[in-house]
C-alpha cells in the first residue's frame, strides 16, 4: 500500500475538510428516529439555539406562567432565586412583579424563642421554595414517585439519534458547527407532547401513564398539559404544543440563565481572535520571508 502524503498534517487537514464539505450534503434537521422502540424526538427550532440565539423574553414569561400554575405544585427550582426573574437575559419581569411572586412563597428563616422554625414571606434574595420539604415527603405525596427538581433539567437530559454508525461523525461535526446544545430541551418538549394512548396489548402498571418518549414508556406523571391549561396575557394560542414549547424554553433558561450574555460575548471574542490570528499570520509570514523554510 503506497500512501504518499506530503505530510500527516496536510492529510488530516484534507480529511477534515472532506468531512465538513460532505456534511453540507446532509440535512440532519429532517431526520426522524427509526421504528421499533426508538422514541420520536426531533430537533426543534428554538430562538436561543445556535450562533445568533437568544431567549425570547415573552416566551420565557409565558413559560414561567405554565411552570407556576402547572408544575410548581410538585417540581421545585431550588437553584434559582426569585430575583433571577427580574434579571437581564431572562423573563425580565419587573422587580415588583418578581417581588410579588416571591411573596407568594413562605420561607423558613431562623427559629423563634422556643426553638421552633420561624416563617416569613419570600424575598427577592430567597431561593425558590420547593413544594415538598424533602424527598420522602415528595414521594409520599406522589405514590412513591419523586418529582425531580427542574432547575437544570434541560441540561440533565438528552436523546440518541438512531443513525448508521459511519454517519455519526458527520452529526458530531454538524452539532458542533451549529452549536446544538438543545438536545435536553428537545427531549422535554417531546416528553410533554408525547402522552398518547398506550398501544394495544400493553398493560400499564398502576398509577402510570403511557408516554412515547419516556424511557420504558411508562411515566408516573400524568399528562400535565392540556389545551387552555394556562391563560396567556399576550394572546398566544394556548394549545398543548404552545404550552410545551414555552415551558421547555423557560426550563432552558433556568438551566442556562446567562446564555444571552455568553453568546454576545462570544461574538466579540471570535471577531477579536480572527483579527488577531490574521495579524499574527501576517507577522509570521513577514518574519519568515527572509529565511528559507
Amino acid at each position, binding site marked *: *500500500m*503506497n*500512501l504518499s502524503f*506530503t*505530510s*500527516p*498534517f496536510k492529510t488530516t487537514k484534507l480529511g477534515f475538510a472532506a468531512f465538513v464539505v460532505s456534511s453540507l450534503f446532509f440535512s440532519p434537521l429532517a431526520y426522524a428516529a427509526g421504528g421499533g422502540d426508538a422514541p420520536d424526538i426531533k430537533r426543534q427550532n428554538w430562538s436561543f439555539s*445556535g*450562533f445568533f440565539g437568544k431567549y425570547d423574553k415573552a416566551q420565557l414569561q409565558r413559560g414561567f406562567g405554565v411552570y407556576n400554575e402547572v408544575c410548581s405544585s410538585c417540581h421545585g427550582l431550588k*437553584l*434559582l432565586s426569585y430575583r*433571577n426573574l427580574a434579571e437581564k437575559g431572562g423573563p425580565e419581569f419587573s422587580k415588583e412583579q418578581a417581588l410579588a411572586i416571591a411573596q407568594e412563597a413562605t420561607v423558613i428563616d431562623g427559629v423563634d424563642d422556643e426553638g421552633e422554625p420561624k416563617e416569613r414571606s419570600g424575598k427577592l434574595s430567597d431561593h425558590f421554595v420547593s413544594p415538598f420539604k424533602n424527598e420522602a415527603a415528595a414521594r409520599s405525596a406522589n405514590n412513591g414517585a419523586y418529582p*425531580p427538581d427542574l*432547575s*437544570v*433539567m434541560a*441540561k*440533565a*437530559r*438528552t436523546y440518541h439519534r438512531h443513525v448508521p*454508525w459511519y454517519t*455519526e461523525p458527520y452529526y458530531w461535526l454538524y*452539532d*458542533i458547527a451549529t*452549536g*446544538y*446544545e438543545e*438536545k*435536553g430541551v428537545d427531549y422535554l418538549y417531546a416528553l410533554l407532547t408525547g402522552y398518547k394512548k398506550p398501544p394495544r396489548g400493553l398493560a400499564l402498571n398502576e398509577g402510570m401513564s403511557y408516554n412515547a418518549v419516556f*424511557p420504558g414508556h411508562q411515566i408516573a406523571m400524568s399528562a400535565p398539559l392540556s389545551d387552555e391549561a394556562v391563560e396567556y396575557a399576550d394572546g398566544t394560542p394556548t394549545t398543548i404544543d404552545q404550552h410545551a414549547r414555552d415551558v421547555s424554553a423557560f426550563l432552558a433558561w433556568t*438551566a442556562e*440563565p*446567562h446564555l444571552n450574555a*455568553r*453568546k454576545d*460575548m*462570544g461574538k466579540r*471574542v*471570535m471577531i477579536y*481572535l*480572527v483579527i*488577531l*490570528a490574521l495579524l*499574527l*499570520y501576517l*507577522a*509570521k509570514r513577514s*518574519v*519568515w520571508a527572509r*529565511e*528559507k*523554510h
Partner: protein
Amino acid sequence: MSDHSSSYEPSNGFTRWLDERLPIIRLMHGQFIDFPTPRNLNYLWTFGAILTFCLMLQIITGIILAMHFVPHGLHAFASVEHIMRNVNWGDLIRYTHAVGASMFFLAAYIHMFRGLYYGSYKSPREILWILGVMIILCMIMTAFMGYSLVWGQMSFWAVTVITNLFTAIPVVGESITQWIWGGYSVGDPTLNRLLSLHYLFPFIIAALVGLHIWALHVVGSNNPTGVEAKTPKDSVSFFPFYVIKDGFAVIVFALLFAWFVFYAPNYLGHSDNFIEANPLQTPPHIVPEWYFLPFYAILRAIPDKLFGVIAMVAAICVLFVIPWLDTSKVRSTRYRPLYKPFFWLFVITCLALGYLGAKAPEGYYLLASRLFTAYYFIHFLVVMPIIGLIETPKQLPDSIAETVLGDASEAEKA
C-alpha cells in the same frame, strides 16, 4: 545544561547586578530567544506552546474555581451552580476550565502522535519521551479527579467504578480501596481529598513540563526529516521565528477553544452529570469523558476484571518503553514506506477504540473492541520491533539545510 551560551549582554546597571547574582535573564535569553531550532519545523511542532498555554489557563481558572467551590457532598453540586449563576463571570470561568480539559487532551494527543510519526522518542530523546508519558499520566489523573468534583451522577459513579478496580489487586486490593475512599464506599472524605489532590497535581505537571523542556533543550528539537541539525545553516533562532509561529498557532487553537466555550460548552460533557449524585441509583450507561474512551474500551474488551485493569494500565505503560521497542535506524516515518501504513492503522485503532468506548460492550462493538485492542498492543510489541529490522528506508537527506535550501521540489516538503 548543554552549552547554548546566549549572546545576552546586560544592558544596564541593574541587569548587570542581577546577572552576577541570579542569571535568570541570561537563562531565558539562551533558552527562548537565541536557542537554535531547526528551520523546517511544521505546525505539528507548535503543540508544545499550545499545551503550555492550556496548562497555564487550567491553573488560573482552576485556582479561581477553588475560591468558590465547596468540597462536601451536600454542597458541591450547588456550589458549582452558584459559580455558574452568581459569581461574577463564573459561568465563563467554569466553562473555560471544563472545555479547557478537553482542549488540553486534544493538543496532548496530537503532540504525542507527532512524536510517534517523526520518531521524536528515539535516542537521544528517550528521557524527553518518558517525561512526556509521565505528564500524560498525571494529566489523566488530574482530569479524572476534576470531573469527579462536580458530584453529579457521572462524577460519583465514575469514581465508584474506577476506585473499585483497585479491589482487583489480590490480597491488599480491598484495603487499598478503602484507604482511597476514606470509608467503606465513595463519600464525603473521598470528595474532599479529590479536591486537595486535584489542586496539587497541576503543579507536579508544571514541574514535569520544566524537566521536559530542559531535556528537550539538552539535545535540541527533532524535525520532520528526523535528521539532526548539523550546522548553523540548519537552524534559526527561536525568537522571532518560532515565537511568532507558536503565537499564531496558539490563537488558531484559541479560536476552536472559544467556539466550544461560547457556543457548545456542554457538548463534550455528559448530561447525566447535571443530575445530583445518588449513591442508590446507577446511571444506565456509565461513560467517561471522550479523552478516556480508548482506555475504557480496552478495559472492557478483556472479559476478566483483573486482566482488564492490567490491560488498561499496560496501554499507557507500554508507551514508556517505545524508545527501546522501535528498532528502526531511521527516525521519521516520512522515510519509512513499510512502517507508514502501520502508523496510520495505529491512528485508526486509537480513533476506533475511542468510538467503541462509548458503546455498550456487546455484539459487534465488543468484537471490534477486542480486535482493535489486540492491534494496539501488536503495534508496539510486534510491528515496531520487526518492521525496523526488515524495512528498507528511503534515502535520507544529507541535512535539514539541503531539504530547505536545495531545489524547489525539496523545499515543498514543509
